[in-house]
């Protein structure tokens, strides 16, 4: 064995812009998404959904459907009563959880409510059969609007409850009444945060297959949480968990909408077990927009107390969250996250929040990218701007004034969270420099002198992610990872994280390559199959790298420690004298070196292992973080509004984000860009529209508008890196940052542009129509 004379480069992967290892299959069309799966004898299911927001079902006639050749079965509510309802993980003391059956019983509660399912040999036949089912609905009174739902004497969504309150939650910190007494200025606003369709380009889908001999149920689902889904399905179907295998194939985007447990998953499982044939159900786009839990859905009323010098004193908030007719998995939890994050990046002395979740005859709401944090950041960033305008202070200055200093960390927020680390002013200054804030303000002055509507919008946002720790996370906040160095020297990494576009196959391979000193090509990252990997919680809340990566980091350390011990034994030296660098074990005591592959082979052949050690070169670790991580950043948007048409031209968009330590800057940029697109959507285009009959009016992509390439501005990104102390990698998370940070910058920019007209707030989405309305109303008065 040769002695290396030059020191190997220690870290060649972490921190580098490395193109993704998952991409070859994705760019060649060889990846296998849910709808690409076929199983021998597979049947196809279609779901009939209610056209009414509230109705009694008097009868359902299925004979015509059953008579169609190729139709195997039709199921209605009573056929599937043995299956447990759709689960909800909330735990408020007054939480009301109505029975959320997987197919409607004698009532429907929202448009899109599943009423019956057809199973046929072909999806064309299933679609034909759906049309042949006759349902005798008797429409009943309904309540579509959440504010109306809470009024005295409102129609009750669930007749078994005395009112439409699904749950309440309150939180208080400091003496808020005193703060309001001391205030020089109090600003108030009512802000609507509309319902958003998460809209991954791949809709939901499930394939269920039952092996009667092995009694094993295999569920392929386009999910972010295969293990949690396995647990819930086992409960719903009353099966031992080890008889249920969940596989998440290639998942075509989730954005939180696939971090759920859906009626159709249990339905497909039930059908496969009943018919003893595999069955596939793939959602249509129309179903997706209609029933895939919408995000946000807030009506917020805020009051902010401050001193004339801009010092923030206290905040009062009332959140009304429209949860729809039923809970999904995390429905009640999401708005509580908004409450917790409401103080934003600021040193508030006091705080009081009341949250009410209201039942309405609409589809359920639940998590969507950012889940609670965009709602919080949006309203606080709007209120800070409103205060700045009120007291005539520059919106940048008022933010600097109220940031905690970098030396104040860990910093305790008014809501009792402990922010792990931060340097808010540095990130903000960087953004101001990039956009050249002073020059932009001068430009604004010149534009205004010409009567043009030019705006500069600032958002300094903070967020909470890397979900753990477990006591604060409903399903557990830990994650698992296994590393197995195979006899060939190749390495398999098994993770409980279940990525769907984030690129963890690459970032986990980067961590592994550096820790083991081997090329990334020698590493396989395995995920998304409950039969292949240890129990994990899943991918949401930017926990992939911080929690899953940390578990991997620990497992890699174990593997290296084990291998070092073997290597020392093989070289006949003390383990303490062995160093491991660049994949090579060496010891000053001898001239010889060993590669990881040499050691791995020996660990498998076990010819000369030290006495008392276990064979193999593998390790499994579970990681539990000590706290959440708190990324932050500053986004600045420059716009000009067309006075006559209400169109907005976004001239600049600067995003400086701090997501802690960075494993792959290329992937981080991608997350930021995509996140910003999902802040731009709600700012200008998105929002489902319900009428007062509970009908969703923009149910296709012809009417529901998500950003297209031409809607997006060029995004100028930069970053600061403040490591997090709550996990060994120092990472924080970046999946939600763009979505959370950008929305307020867009809105503040447009409001700033419109402010010469006396406009102080405009609700989202700020469509050209709504901006035109605002301008038009002003110019009339």
């Amino acid at each position, binding site marked *: 064995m040769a002695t290396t004379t030059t020191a190997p480069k220690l870290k060649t992967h972490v921190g580098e812009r490395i193109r993704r290892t998952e991409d070859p299959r994705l760019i060649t069309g060889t990846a296998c998404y849910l709808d690409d799966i076929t199983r021998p004898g597979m049947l196809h299911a279609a779901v009939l959904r209610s056209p009414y927001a509230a109705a009694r079902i008097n009868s359902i006639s299925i004979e015509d459907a059953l008579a169609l050749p190729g139709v195997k079965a039709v199921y209605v509510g009573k056929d599937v009563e043995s299956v447990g309802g759709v689960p909800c993980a909330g735990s408020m003391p007054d939480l009301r959880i109505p029975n959320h059956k997987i197919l409607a019983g004698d009532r429907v509660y929202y448009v899109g409510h599943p009423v019956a399912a057809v199973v046929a040999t072909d999806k064309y036949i299933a*679609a034909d059969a759906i*049309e042949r089912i006759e349902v005798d609905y008797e429409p009943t009174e309904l309540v579509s609007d959440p504010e109306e739902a809470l009024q005295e004497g409102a129609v009750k969504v669930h007749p078994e409850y005395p009112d439409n309150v699904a749950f309440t939650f309150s939180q208080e910190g400091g003496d808020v009444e005193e703060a309001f007494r001391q205030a020089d200025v109090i600003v108030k606003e009512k802000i609507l945060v509309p319902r958003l369709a998460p809209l991954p380009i791949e809709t939901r889908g499930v394939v269920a297959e039952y092996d009667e001999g092995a009694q094993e149920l295999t569920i392929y689902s386009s999910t972010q949480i295969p293990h949690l889904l396995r647990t819930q399905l086992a409960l719903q179907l009353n099966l031992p968990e080890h008889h249920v295998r969940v596989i998440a194939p290639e998942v075509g985007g989730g954005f939180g909408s696939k971090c759920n447990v859906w009626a159709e998953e249990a339905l497909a499982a039930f059908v496969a077990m009943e018919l003893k044939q595999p069955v596939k159900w793939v959602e249509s786009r129309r179903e997706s927009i209609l029933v895939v839990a919408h995000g946000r859905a807030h009506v917020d009323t805020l009051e902010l107390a401050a001193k004339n010098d801009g010092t923030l004193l206290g905040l009062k908030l009332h959140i009304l969250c429209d949860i729809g007719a039923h809970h999904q998995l995390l429905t009640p939890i999401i708005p509580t996250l908004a409450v917790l994050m409401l103080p934003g990046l600021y040193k508030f002395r006091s705080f009081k929040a009341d949250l009410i979740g209201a039942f309405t005859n609409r589809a359920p709401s639940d998590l969507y990218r950012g889940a609670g944090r965009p709602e919080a950041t949006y309203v606080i960033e709007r209120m800070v701007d409103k205060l700045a305008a009120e007291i005539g202070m520059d919106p940048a200055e008022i933010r600097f004034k109220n940031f905690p200093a970098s030396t104040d960390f860990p910093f305790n927020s008014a809501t009792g969270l402990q922010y792990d680390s931060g340097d808010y002013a540095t990130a903000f200054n960087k953004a101001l420099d990039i956009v050249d804030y002073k020059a932009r303000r001068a430009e604004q002055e010149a534009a205004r002198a010409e009567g043009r509507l030019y705006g500069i919008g600032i958002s300094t946002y903070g967020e909470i992610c890397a979900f753990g720790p477990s006591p604060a996370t409903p399903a557990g906040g830990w994650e698992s990872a296994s590393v197995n160095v195979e006899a060939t020297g190749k390495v398999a990494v098994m993770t409980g994280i279940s990525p769907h576009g984030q690129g963890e196959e690459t970032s986990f391979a980067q961590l592994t390559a550096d820790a083991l000193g081997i090329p990334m090509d020698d590493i396989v990252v395995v995920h998304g199959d409950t039969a292949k990997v240890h129990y994990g919680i899943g991918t949401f809340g930017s926990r992939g790298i911080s929690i899953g990566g940390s578990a991997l980091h620990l497992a890699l350390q174990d593997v290296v420690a084990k291998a070092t011990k073997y290597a020392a034994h093989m070289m006949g030296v003390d383990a303490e004298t062995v160093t491991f660098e660049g994949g090579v074990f060496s010891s000053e005591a001898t001239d010889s070196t060993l590669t990881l592959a040499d050691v791995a082979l020996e660990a498998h052949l076990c010819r000369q292992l030290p006495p008392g050690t276990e064979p193999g070169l593998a390790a499994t670790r579970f990681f539990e973080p000590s706290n959440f991580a708190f990324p932050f950043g500053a986004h600045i948007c420059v716009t000009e509004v067309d006075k006559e048409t209400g169109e907005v031209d976004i001239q600049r968009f600067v995003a400086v984000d701090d997501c802690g330590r960075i494993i792959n800057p290329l992937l981080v940029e991608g997350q930021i860009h995509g996140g910003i697109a999902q802040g731009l959507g709600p700012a200008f*285009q998105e929002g489902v529209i319900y009428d007062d009959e509970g009908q969703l009016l923009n149910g296709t992509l012809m009417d529901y508008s998500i950003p*297209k390439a031409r809607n997006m501005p060029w995004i100028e990104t930069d970053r600061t890196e403040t490591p997090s102390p709550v996990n060994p990698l120092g990472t924080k998370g970046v999946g939600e940052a763009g979505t959370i940070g950008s929305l307020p910058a867009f809105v503040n920019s447009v409001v700033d542009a419109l402010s010469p007209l006396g406009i102080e707030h405009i609700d989202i989405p700020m469509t050209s*129509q709504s901006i035109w309305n605002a301008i038009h109303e002003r110019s009339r008065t």
Partner: protein
Amino acid sequence: MIPASFDYSAPETLSEALQLLGDEEAKVLAGGQSLIPMLKLRLAQPARLVDLDRIPDLNFIAEDNGTIRIGAMTTHHQVESSDLLAENCPLLAKTAAHIGDVQVRNRGTIGGSVAHADPAADYPAALLALEAQVKLVSASGERVVALDEFLVDALTTSLEDGEILTEVHVPVEQAGVATAYRTLIQPASGFAIVGAAVRLGVSNGNVSFVRVALTGVGSKPYRASAVEQALEGGPANAEAFAAAAAHAAEDVDVLSDIHASAAYRASLAAVQTRRALEDAAGSA
């Protein structure tokens, strides 16, 4: 989403197609970019589709004697990229470039679009400003009618049962006439909320020729005669354009939907008309 069953024929001659259309429940397929989505949503359930795609004589752009004839099955992409049109009828070529997206333009046809009569389609604004005509053929003969008469109402034309739209006729653009098309689109569908097409001739600082047509505003695209009258013979300047454009939605029953109120559409009609006039004046 899956269409209900239907029969399909792809005749190779027009007469064969006309024969097949004799069946009342038959429907012409001319590209299908509007029809196929409706089939999939099962909002349309014809018994038979008669696909015109394999009839060779329906895909052409030809000029003769000052009239450009465009075969019904000519795609938007072909119109957009035709040298003949770029030179002789630029308004139509640039309007085609606004339709849908590349894939839709590769597949959708001018005949299909005009016969579908969507009140927010782009073509009609240009075609009305061009005083276009359409050729309709039936088993018993053929007729050429002005587009203005052909378009009856939203999604409704004067096409009779058993009749096929085979050609669209537009004039070779006059010398000295500049054109422009301005739209504000509904961001999801790409359809025009308001689209304004203008043809403008100016001599000695005065408007010598003007045609203005709008789409998206009412249930039927229309010539804005009041705007034209206000401009004709008068000065070609910003004030005159603004004053005339204010008449853009005059006497029109303006549509209102979840994307744009009637008041907003009416205001946009004036703004986009004025801007299109300015564009045309600027490019002349």
